[in-house]
């Protein structure tokens, strides 16, 4: 006991206490948030997919998008947006939107795959619109051309998403997100539906085969190995200049200081 009380005066006692408190709080939070949330039970045996979707819609979406998905001042109409839009927005967690900020952020999806499919079916039932796709149906490996995909990407996509799909800034805090690690179906659906700031790329302007090529190129870019070493974010000269100053000049100045120091 005496050791503990005399340790109190040690100068690292304070920092150790802070670290321990942080660790405790952090672990508690991690445990708490890992607990499964209450499952949304849906009795799929008695409702069709569309009516299940309508139920979920009324519960979770109508407060912004209107009781009949007709939209309003705070959210657009969903009539005619098609199952593709729903699959994209809900599947990537963008919808339901967490707050009314500039842009719907990608986050952990609130609805599982079955619920998303139900919502998509409901919205599709309101009016014809682009249909959602599955990853399996996108035969980009067989039918896509990587080099053509790259050319199409650079002409149509790089101005927002950057040459390597790392994302880029739009005006007033909006941004085009990184395309790395995004499932092929979401890429396809985003091109077709033009979510939020993104324009639509209809099948007439970028044919389905061209869209497959773009996806194939993105997959290649995502898995592109680093030919020259650490990629520094693939955003160009900004990070390169930073590293040059910090590591390059830093190491050299360090060497110079060592060089000029008198040896013992």
């Amino acid at each position, binding site marked *: 006991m005496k050791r503990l009380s005399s340790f109190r005066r040690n100068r690292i006692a304070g920092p150790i206490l802070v670290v321990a408190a942080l660790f405790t709080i952090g672990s508690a939070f991690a445990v708490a948030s890992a607990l499964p949330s209450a499952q949304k039970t849906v009795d799929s045996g008695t409702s069709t997919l569309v009516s299940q979707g309508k139920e979920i819609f009324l519960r979770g979406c109508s407060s912004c998008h209107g009781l009949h998905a007709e939209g309003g001042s705070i959210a657009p109409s969903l009539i005619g947006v098609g199952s593709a839009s729903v699959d994209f927005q809900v599947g990537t967690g963008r919808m339901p939107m967490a707050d009314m900020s500039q842009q719907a952020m990608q986050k952990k999806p609130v609805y599982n795959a079955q619920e998303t499919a139900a919502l998509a079916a409901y919205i599709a039932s309101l009016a014809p619109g682009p249909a959602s796709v599955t990853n399996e149906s996108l035969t980009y490996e067989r039918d896509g051309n*990587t*080099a053509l995909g*790259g*050319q199409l990407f*650079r*002409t149509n996509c*790089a*101005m*927002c*998403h*950057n*040459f*390597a799909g*790392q*994302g*880029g*800034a739009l*005006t*007033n*805090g909006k*941004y*085009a997100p990184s395309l790395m690690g995004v499932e092929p179906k979401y890429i396809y659906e985003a091109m077709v539906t033009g979510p939020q700031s993104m324009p639509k790329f209809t099948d007439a302007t970028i044919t389905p085969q061209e869209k497959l090529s773009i996806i194939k*190129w993105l997959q*290649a*870019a995502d898995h*592109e190995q*680093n*030919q*020259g*070493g*650490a*990629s*520094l974010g*693939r*955003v*160009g*000269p*900004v990070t*390169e*200049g*930073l*590293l*040059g*100053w910090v*590591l*390059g*000049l830093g*190491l*050299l*100045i360090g*060497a*110079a*200081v060592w*060089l*000029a*120091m008198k040896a013992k």
Partner: protein
Amino acid sequence: MKTSQKVAGATANYVDERTGAAKWLKKNLTKVFPDHWSFMLGEICLYSFIILLLTGTFLTFWFDPSQREVVYNGSYLPLSGVHMSAAYDSTLHLSFDVRGGLLMRQIHHWAALIFMSAIVAHLFRVFFTGAFRKPREFNWLIGVGLLTFGIVEGFLGYSLPDDLLSGTGIRIAEAILQAIPVVGSYLSFFAFGGPFPGTSFIPRIFIVHVLLLPGLFLALITIHLMLVWYQKHTQYPGPGRTEKNVVGYPLMPVYMAKAGGFFFVVLGVTAFLGAVASINPIWLYGPYTPGQISAGSQPDWYMGWLDGLVRAAPPLETHAFGHTISWNILIPGLIIPGILFTGMALYPFIESWITGDKREHHLLDRPRNAPNRTALGVTAIVFILITLANGGNDIIATHFHLTINGIMWFTRIALFIVPPIAFVITKRICLSLQRADRDLVLHGRETGRLVMLPSGEMIEVHEPLSDAKKWTLTQHQNPDALPAPLPASATVGLKGKIRARLNRANAVQIPAPTLSDLKELGDGHH
């Protein structure tokens, strides 16, 4: 005598009989160089330049500086069948099909970044220590020239591969040319051999990049070094160091080993960066076409401040009498950089005009002892840092959840408000540091040890400074160190009044303590 000694002797004799080299070798091998780490910054520049020459020569053996269109069929599959220029194609070939080719490309580009940052760091050291004063004004001018040409050389260099990112930079450079009143469109057509992008530009800048500018660099660097050699290097003030001597180590063996070794260290660090960090991955950018653009397009850092200035410029153009003048391009692209660099070049002359100081200086200033100069330097640095940050405003916005609009407006206002504030703060900090020095000399170093006197009073023990330290902290205000006041004739007229004003402001100093001051204090400890 050993064989090696015999051979060495015979060789030396051979050379000396034909050149008389023994005499100047004898003198120069014993030349003394002061030793301080901050004196190595210029060496980093020199060694980086040599690395650039060596790696650059390697690259020219494979690079094809031609804009003729070819179809790619090398080993980088995502570009198979794509139409591109031979310049881009040969750079891809270097990167993927030549062993060590990418390594050399990367070492070359990292060496260029380090070359430029070392020039800037060296510039700071020379400026803040007043090493540009007489007799080194010529060297300062050469240095500013090297900085300017270095920026151009780097820009031309990374534009050679004709990729989307650097091609965009060339497009922007062409727009600056085109915007020049009266002759702009002609200059652009002459430079590009016709309309942009043309097929003449890359071959022409290739010659500028590998022959004309390196030749110019070699000449300027040689004169720069010869002046340093002949005028002898400056040194920091300290015990035993005067305006009339140089204290340090001899060229042979110490300096040869240290400087020669440092060359290999610079080579090693640059090679390390080339090994582990990807730079300028042109295969990801794609070949240049004016119809494409990438989000987050920036030039290399040493031009980033120009990009930031151009972004922040207000949308001003004059449309009159059937003509257009683009102030939104000319002001940030030519006029402001012109003012900055001219000011930088003329600074030694401006300062000596203000101080009226026509003497030689071989002892460096501690920055705090020249508060106005230090504050001016910090002001310029702050200005450049704000523009540099604005050059990357889209990348900053996405990574720190800000808006490009907000950063832009911040920059437009900050460029005017922050530098003067920085000036005032820096000057005050310098004067505070001078006060701290004065306290140190008069009262010694606070040791943190408490002692109770017999009277019961608690005092902190102050350790008096060594004589060497006392000298170093006070020598800058010795009568022979201070400049003479301006003669009365120099202060007449408007120009003279301004000069007098600036002179007075420049001379603001905290008086350095003297031995008399110390003696007056007696033996008080507190």
